């Protein structure tokens, strides 16, 4: 008997949720079209993967055979792109200020003379660190060029005294470092940005839309009807209303995963099932989080504001660019309040590093926690639903 009632009410509120979702074009727009377009935008924007050919300038005050050789080598490098040769330091500095170039390589007077007479020649590279990612690329390029030039000089000297090439190598670089970059040996920048930013962007839509659909009930005063259809049971009302959205969001999420892993070839080093299962959990966790925000402030505008705030700040709190151990502890701790953090950690473990599922067990559990928690607190929304007050 009781089971039948529950089933009846659930079916009724589910139907109501379906009709509501289909009736407003806004829902489909913000659940399917815009998220897909947005995720496509982010991934397509960065599809080149690695930053190459940073526009730089050179100042050659020496104008010697050595400096010409140096510049020729630099021109052949893919990290930097010599846009212009400036006649002095001041001109190059002005070009940086105007934004024409992002840095320049400065060869002082008498470079060749000083090199041959061992009087401590110094070249400098001026790098504009306001543009962070290109700056590190420039540094790498400039540093390699200087090393190669040195190698050229020393090699010539050592060969004339008859040293074998192996010994020359060992003299040039006594310690050789082998870098192992599991999962991303190409240092593809898109791997970092897309695996973190794209799901976070998607999460923003889930948060905003859930907040919007709950808020609309409260605002329009239809929340009594909403509750009545579910037999005055808030949990049934919430699940009935949100499950149609869960289904749509999950399908969109799977499509995004397909785009990420199959079309844009982001690393997927685990059983695809691990990520596929994570998606509906992620969707529900975000819906749960939005409901939780409404439990905290059962008001359309405040609830939406909180969801927007947390959704937007997740991009920073969740430590995609500055690692969490480098943040203030309280900032890193706030990151753990949003579902995105757990999805990020598990996708790093599973998709990027491909380690055992065992190590990610807690992250999956946390996502489940986000679904359960708001159901416990749903009495707060119920109270508001029975007595809705709209504050503009």
């Amino acid at each position, binding site marked *: 008997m009781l089971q039948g009632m529950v089933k009846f009410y659930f079916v009724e509120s589910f139907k109501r949720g379906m009709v509501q979702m289909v009736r407003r074009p806004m829902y489909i727009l913000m659940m399917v079209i815009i998220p897909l377009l*947005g995720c496509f935008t982010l991934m397509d924007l*960065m599809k080149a993967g690695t930053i190459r050919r940073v526009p730089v300038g050179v100042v050659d005050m020496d104008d010697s055979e050595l400096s010409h050789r140096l510049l020729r080598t630099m021109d052949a490098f893919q990290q930097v792109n010599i846009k212009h040769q400036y006649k002095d330091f001041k001109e190059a500095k002005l070009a940086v200020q105007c934004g024409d170039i992002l840095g320049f390589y400065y060869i002082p007077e008498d470079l060749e003379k000083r090199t041959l007479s061992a009087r401590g020649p110094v070249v400098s590279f001026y790098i504009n660190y306001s543009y962070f990612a290109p700056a590190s690329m420039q540094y790498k390029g400039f540093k390699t060029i200087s090393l190669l030039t040195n190698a050229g000089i020393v090699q010539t000297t050592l060969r004339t005294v008859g040293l074998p090439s192996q010994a020359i190598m060992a003299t040039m670089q006594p310690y050789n470092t082998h870098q192992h970059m599991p999962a991303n040996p190409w240092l593809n920048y898109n791997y970092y940005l897309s695996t973190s930013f794209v799901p976070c962007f998607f999460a923003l839509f889930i948060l905003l839309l859930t907040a919007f659909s709950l808020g609309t009930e409260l605002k329009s005063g239809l929340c009594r009807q909403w509750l009545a259809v579910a037999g005055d049971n808030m949990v049934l009302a919430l699940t009935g209303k949100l499950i149609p959205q869960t289904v749509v969001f999950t399908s969109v999420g799977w499509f995004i995963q397909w785009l990420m892993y199959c079309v844009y070839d982001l690393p997927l080093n685990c059983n695809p099932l691990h990520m596929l299962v994570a998606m509906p959990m992620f969707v529900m966790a975000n819906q749960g989080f939005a409901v939780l925000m409404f439990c905290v402030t059962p008001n359309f505008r405040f609830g939406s504001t909180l969801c927007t705030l947390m959704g937007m700040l997740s991009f920073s709190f969740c430590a995609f660019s500055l690692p969490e151990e480098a943040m203030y502890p309280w900032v890193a701790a706030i990151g753990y309040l949003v579902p995105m953090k757990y999805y990020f950690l598990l996708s790093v473990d599973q998709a990027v590093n491909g380690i055992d599922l065992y190590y990610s067990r807690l992250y999956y559990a946390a996502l489940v926690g986000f679904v359960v928690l708001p159901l416990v607190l749903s009495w707060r929304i119920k109270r508001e639903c029975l007595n809705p007050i709209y504050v503009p």
Partner: protein
Amino acid sequence: MRQWFLEMYRVWWREFRLVLRDEGVVIFFFGVCAVYPILYSLIYNTEVERDEPIVVVDDCRSQLSRRLARNLDATPEVKIVSYAANMQEARELMHRKKCYGVVYIPRDFDMDVNRGEQGHVSVYSDMSVMFRYKNMLMAITNVTQAMGGELQSQRLAPFTYGGVELIESRQVPIGNTGMGLASAVLLFILPLVIQQSMLLGIGMLHGGSIERRRRNRGYDPMEEPACVSATVIGKMLCHQIVYVAPVVYVLHFTPMMFDFPQNSNLLHSVALAVPFIIAVSFMGQTLQAVVNERESVFLLFAFTSVIFVFLVGVSWPRYEMSRFWYTVGDCVPSTWMSNGYVLMQSGGATLSQIVHPYCMLWLQCGVFFVLAYAVERFVSRPRYRSWQRKAAADADSLQRFDIIKNGVG
């Protein structure tokens, strides 16, 4: 003409009152501008990573390998949290996130070096966050180069008789001299905060007006009757005045509070912000056409921040974007504002050196004015008139529409 100015003045004054009376809009215009810059700055305020936890697997156990580990530990970038017995154990620690990198020193490391061959070291880094890899690389490169340098001069001396000296290279960071993340990223974000708060606020004002029209048979009792251009320009002037304080606070005082590069003076920043605010105001008045109720601005406008951040070129440089995305970026005021602002604030450029972004902003003012005018004249006003006609025939039709749309009836 006099009539036009009078109308514009009335619109300006009315918009002022609407802004200040609406709590939601005040929060967007002032609250967001006050809180977001501080929050973002606090998140990134540590600027750099220090003492990233790593683990060493020392199979060599010689005086040289211990020295290498000791020197690594002494770098600001990394910190050795443990010595693992073998790679298996190190990997386990990495999976448990106790460390984010492993340095492996093989058994014959010191033998190779002392024999005059190359010594090999292997480095494994966690690749989930770019910063960690960079830190790890920086530490190991600096240490091996410094140790190698000593060895090199010993080995080279007998051959070269001091005849050749290696070219030394020196890095001079400019603009963001501390090479910190916050100083680089935040200067791009600050103008964006202003833009987004303004778009949200303008959208919400319009949503409120639409809701009033629904309740009042298509008329907005708070609207000042005025011609289209007077309405658009009057509102813009109001936004300009309202935003004086947020602009000064966000663009001038926030960098001061968090010690970001501050090479621009207040006058130049404000001069750059004038066309920016005009352009954003017109942009908001163009985009507001899609807003049908107050709260849908969250849904419709909030996500654009993410797209705009990327188009600005802060995470991915603009010159690397495809022609299409580059052009899309050109159409957004924040792209020019942020890049111009960074050149001034960080590079110390004067307004005369950033003529291009500055002129582009003025161009956008023109383009968005035409768009805002067209939207108001050919979309919004005909729509209100049709509502008024509909409501004249059936008084409740507009409100009923609301219920049908939201509920199940």
